[in-house]
């Protein structure tokens, strides 16, 4: 009879009242544990901060976790790794929803413009973070990228990607070319020189090509940047871009590219079976070669060399940031973690040694680590080269429209290569489309920029 009376009580109370009661109880239960630690933050209760990112950041963090926990015994890390694209989508959703975001979120260079110029992330220049004191210690363009049109810093620089060409010493030797970095740098100091070397390397009968995609010649100078001038007018139809596209067309005509997309399974296979001799990449690409790209049972030690990009070596590809969402209730602990990990020579260099993420923190470069010869690269002092390139990188312009602009720009570059279009005309067309497609975002961001003046 018990259930009978229970039902009738429920009937009397009314279903909706009962449901409402349940909802209130459930939300109270959910709030209670969350409220407790923040009220007792001053005490000895450990604070756990959630950190979102993608591999190999977890390995990078492990390299200094013990030191961090020794310094801040009351802060515990909950590191959650997911694929790069998923992380950004989830973060955007959590910021839009106003709930569910982590305390610290990694943001990649490709996605930073999606978050700059919008709300949701803490301005790190404000009290109590005062990140401004580190501005002089950071690679300037990196700092600029995370700064919003109205002057807030919404993410803290982690690493940069000084771009270089990675080349196979043994394959160059087979083609009768010198393979030491000095000679190769000299041979490939201009794009015509690069194409010349590449032509000697390429032999389709032996399934060998110099590079995977001729579009990399353009991309080397235009990864995530320089699509607009200071007034945010599209400039990819300028002389430089057209010149690079012309070189890329010459490369395509010479047949030196395999026409295989970077990152696909076929590309990976071809790197592994000696079908691609030269590959463009940021410093982080060295870590890929030592790690997941290396085919099983093959020893690549001493077989790779690194040279700068022809003509204008100060180039960058990739790199990431860390940010604190506004909704985090543990901003202090989150900032302590970011400051320790990124504005700290010791932690930055431990991460660099572990996963080849090249620090954006300039004081880190003053370390014996950067003078070391890397046996994987045949004893070349690659880190010193990357520091040199990082110093050569000129300030460049990034805008909130870059992700879309890059997609349209590279589509036109590939179209110009595939259909052998007039390079100037193709780049003009690219600009028309970029201006058209990004007009809405541009107006919005400009309004923000005006407001701050």
């Amino acid at each position, binding site marked *: 009879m018990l259930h009978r009376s229970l*039902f009738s009580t*429920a*009937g009397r109370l009314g*279903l909706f009242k009962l449901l409402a009661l349940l909802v209130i109880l459930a939300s109270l239960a959910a709030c209670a544990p969350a409220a407790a630690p923040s009220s007792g933050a001053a005490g000895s209760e450990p604070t756990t901060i959630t950190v979102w990112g993608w591999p190999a950041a977890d390995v990078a963090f492990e390299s200094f976790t013990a030191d961090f926990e020794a310094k801040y015994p009351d802060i515990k890390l909950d590191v959650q790794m997911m694929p790069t694209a998923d992380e950004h*989508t989830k973060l*955007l*959703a959590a*910021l*839009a929803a106003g709930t569910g975001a982590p305390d610290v979120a990694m943001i990649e260079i490709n996605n930073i413009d*999606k*978050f700059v110029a*919008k*709300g*949701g992330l803490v301005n790190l220049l404000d009290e109590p973070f005062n990140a401004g004191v580190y501005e002089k210690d950071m690679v300037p363009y990196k700092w600029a990228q995370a700064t919003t049109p109205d002057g807030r810093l919404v993410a803290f620089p982690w690493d940069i990607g000084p771009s270089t060409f990675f080349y196979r010493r043994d394959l160059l030797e087979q083609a009768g070319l010198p393979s030491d970095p000095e000679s190769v740098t000299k041979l490939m100091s201009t794009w015509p020189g690069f194409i010349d070397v590449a032509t000697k390397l390429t032999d389709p009968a032996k*399934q060998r090509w110099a590079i995977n995609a001729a579009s990399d010649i353009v991309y080397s100078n235009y990864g995530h940047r320089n699509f607009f001038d200071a007034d945010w007018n599209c400039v990819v139809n300028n002389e430089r871009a057209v010149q690079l596209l012309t070189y890329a067309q010459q490369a395509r005509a010479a047949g030196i590219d*395999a*026409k*295989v*997309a970077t990152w*696909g*399974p*076929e590309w990976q*296979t*071809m790197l592994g079976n000696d*079908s691609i001799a030269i590959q463009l990449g940021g410093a982080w690409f060295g870590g890929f070669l030592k790690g997941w790209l290396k085919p099983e049972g093959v020893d690549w030690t001493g077989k790779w060399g690194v040279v700068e990009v022809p003509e204008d070596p100060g180039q960058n590809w990739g790199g990431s940031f860390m940010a604190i969402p506004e909704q985090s209730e543990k901003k202090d602990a989150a900032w302590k973690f970011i400051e320790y990990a990124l504005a700290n020579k010791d932690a930055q260099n431990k991460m660099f040694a572990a996963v080849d993420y090249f620090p954006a923190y300039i004081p880190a470069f003053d370390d014996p680590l950067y003078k070391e010869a890397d046996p994987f690269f045949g004893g070349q002092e690659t880190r010193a080269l990357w520091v040199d390139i990082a110093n050569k990188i000129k300030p460049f312009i990034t805008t909130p429209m870059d*992700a*879309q602009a890059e*997609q349209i720009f*590279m*589509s036109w570059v*590939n*179209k110009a290569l*595939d*259909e052998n279009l007039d390079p100037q005309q193709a780049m003009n067309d690219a600009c028309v*489309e970029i201006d058209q*497609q990004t007009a*809405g*975002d541009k107006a*919005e961001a400009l309004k923000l920029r005006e407001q701050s003046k």
Partner: protein
Amino acid sequence: MTQLATAVPRRRSVSLWREMRRNWVAYAYIAPFFILFAIFGAFPILFSLYLSFQQWNGISPIQFVGLENYARLLADRLFWLSLWNTVFIGVIAHIPILFGALVLAFIVNSSLIRWKQFYRAAYFLPVVTAPVAVALVFGTLYGVRFGLINWVLTTVGLPAIDWWGGTGQWIKPAIIILFIWRWLGWNMIIYLAGIQGINPELYEVAAIDGASLRQVFFHITLPLLRPIILFTLVLSTVGAMTIFDEPYMLVGVTGGANNAGLTTALYLYNNAFQFAHFGYASAIAYVVSAIIVLVSVFNIRVFGRSQTEA
């Protein structure tokens, strides 16, 4: 009676409410579906209708822009291109899918075939295969330099196919082949269920009368399957207009060379999750939905009417 009739609307709502309260346990049992549907179905549908008249980047305050998103759509070259790509891929892929599935279902159901279960499972397998595995396998098949298809072609002396290059002329065929492979078995299973719902006595009568297999197919199976065919047509319209996985796996978010593989769903995804144009993406979603509804109504009219005549 007339007195009562005027009182009906009010009485009905009161008694409905009373009925619901009396049977609240039953309603509580079916509530989970409706609660989940309200949160994950109805809310997004209504919210994106609202969003389609706004400008929103996901974080900043939502701004009302009236019909601007729809006006922009009309002038957007990429939107029209994506619509053309979607319709082209959808129509070309569904001709072999629907005809093939029907014939396959008929064959697999026929008493002349052995190992029916094996064939049914084999044709259905692509539907339940994880997209990641599909992407890997087809990436290997479609490889330009080290692909299985190109290896076969060059071995027999034919030129290799430049799948992703040129003007993108091979991108649509590549997507269509993958799409057919993935969805043939799905439609076959639906037709098979329909065929098995046909009274077997009709076949026996036909056999006694000496009807050929061909006659049985065209005069018994096909006409009686009409409602099922209508069902698959509607499902296919929805499936075709929302093609996403296949081009995303093969050519990524841009749709490849000349945007040849850019479908409307891909363009929508791009706008929402790559560029954070949620208002614009919602407008695209509503235009696509309108097209699906129109085509479905057309299908229902054409097939539905002839059925009532029959």
